[in-house]
């Protein structure tokens, strides 16, 4: 059973276009998000020792 139907010349454009639009949107969103989320990881605790990580 098919779940996607396209006909004629349109099929050659629709499929790549879906890929480009969705992929592009997600990629752009990720890059923008990346920039804004740089501060989301808690900074290391200020200490005279090397702190292994933040739990």
């Amino acid at each position, binding site marked *: 059973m*098919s779940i996607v139907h396209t006909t004629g010349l349109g099929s050659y454009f629709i499929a790549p276009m879906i*890929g480009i639009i969705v992929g592009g949107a997600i990629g752009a969103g*990720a890059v923008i*998000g990346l920039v804004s989320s740089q501060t989301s990881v808690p900074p290391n605790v200020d200490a*005279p020792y*090397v702190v292994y*990580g933040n739990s």
Partner: protein
Amino acid sequence: MYRRWLLLAYAFVLSVLVLGPALRPGYALTYDMVFTPHESLLPWTLGAGSALPRSVPQDAVVAILNIILPGWVLQKIALLAALVLAGFGAARCVRGPGAWVAVTLAIWNPFVAERLVQGHWSLLIAYACLPWIVCAASARRWPVVVVWCALAALTPTGGLLAAVIAIPAVLLQPGRRLFKAVWSLAIFATNLPWLVPALMHIGSESGGTDVFGLRAEGPWGSVLTAVGLGGIWNGEAVLPSRALWIAPIVGVAVCTLAAFGWSAFFRRFGRVAGIWLTVSVLGFGLALLSAIAPTLFVAITEIPGGGLVRDAQKLLAPLAILVAVLAGIGIGRVAEKVADRAVAPSLIVLTVVIPIATMPDLAFGASGRVSSVAYPSDFETVREQVGAGVGDAISLPWAAFRNFDWNGHRTVLDPMPRFLARSVVADDTLLVGRDGIIQPVGGDDSRAALVGSRLAAGEALTAFGPEMGIEYAVLAHNVAGPDSQAALRGAQVVWEGEELSLYWLGEPTATSSGSDLGLIVVVDILVALVVLASAVLVYFPRKRRFGC
């Protein structure tokens, strides 16, 4: 055949993209990952030291291979092999175009990203071994299973995860009982190199703590974080993209896709598929338990041997690679149902692109977090000055981790124990930041604990070092840590450099070598023979002999 090579090439390209600067000549030093130019085969690498065998037998294997290959080459091989084997192994479980998705998801996922930054290369190798174990087990090629399990057992957790899949697979597959017993024992034996030293250290296990539990990576909480295969305890090993709302959405979408693939996967792999799913669900449950019921989880880790699951997110390994395989099969099934031949490939391409596009910061060594550097020449000079001998060395400042400026201030385990040709006493107390407070997590090395308490009391190393078998002290400059002046009172300067200084404490009056070394070596040789015999049987004419 042609398709298989293309998939292998794709896995290779993707792995190179992930590792990026870590593949340059030099050493990628991050958290627990330390490779050195020439690691020596010392008693502690076999588990005969005073600490729990947490990195046994990986260090012994690296030391042996170091005889023929330099450390930096070994590191590149280990990292590349882990990722390529994971991607290609996942693809082997998938028929059709979904294999491209399986390769992508097996290499490009939060579990791989976080363990790579944390430096758990041997766990990643174990993760990569799982699909190969399942493929070989479903074909009842037991010698192959033993060889893969041995590779997974480079690290205790890896060996355990491989064994809990492989041993039930042997027992539940048809075959003669005698052969099933023999192969189960052979798989179990691959874990003896770490299990025997661990049994010798029973009672010295460090106390349970909830700081290593699975950690939510955003406001969506622990469950969605675990479903998305992230959640490592160390917030600094988490990529920034994991804090985006797209992260849990992609995690849920991939798991939904994986559900479509289950029936086809089960039809092909039968009972072995059921075992893999069961182990994955159990691992997921335990990892989640560490987040939602930390007190109960800590109680579990306090059971002897329970310390193995202390770092709970590790247990997502079987699920992470199973999801990659199932999602590959799932998207293949969806693509089959699409009538339009032009849309189906686009669906595959989209499913390949989305995991990469939504976690782009995994590229190029997790955006430079895993990158190669060169050790300053001081390290080589100190190694030559100390040489090999009876007395041990101590590494100062007395702190477990270093933040060398030549390593971009990345946190890394003190490399000195793996750099010198003598056993090195080093601090093993972990300092973990939590809500702005530093929480010390006690180590399990009884000798280090004793040295640490005497140093804390202000005693000089010259006063107690030689009687504890410690002859030299190596002091690292320009790194964070407690002041070492009091510890080095009266010590004779042997050599001073910009990065390191070497001190002589006195002629050692005791030796530290474990008396258990003989038994451990015998067990290791026997296990090596079992693995070697299995490797020979891999090429045995494929008749139904030996139950394979």
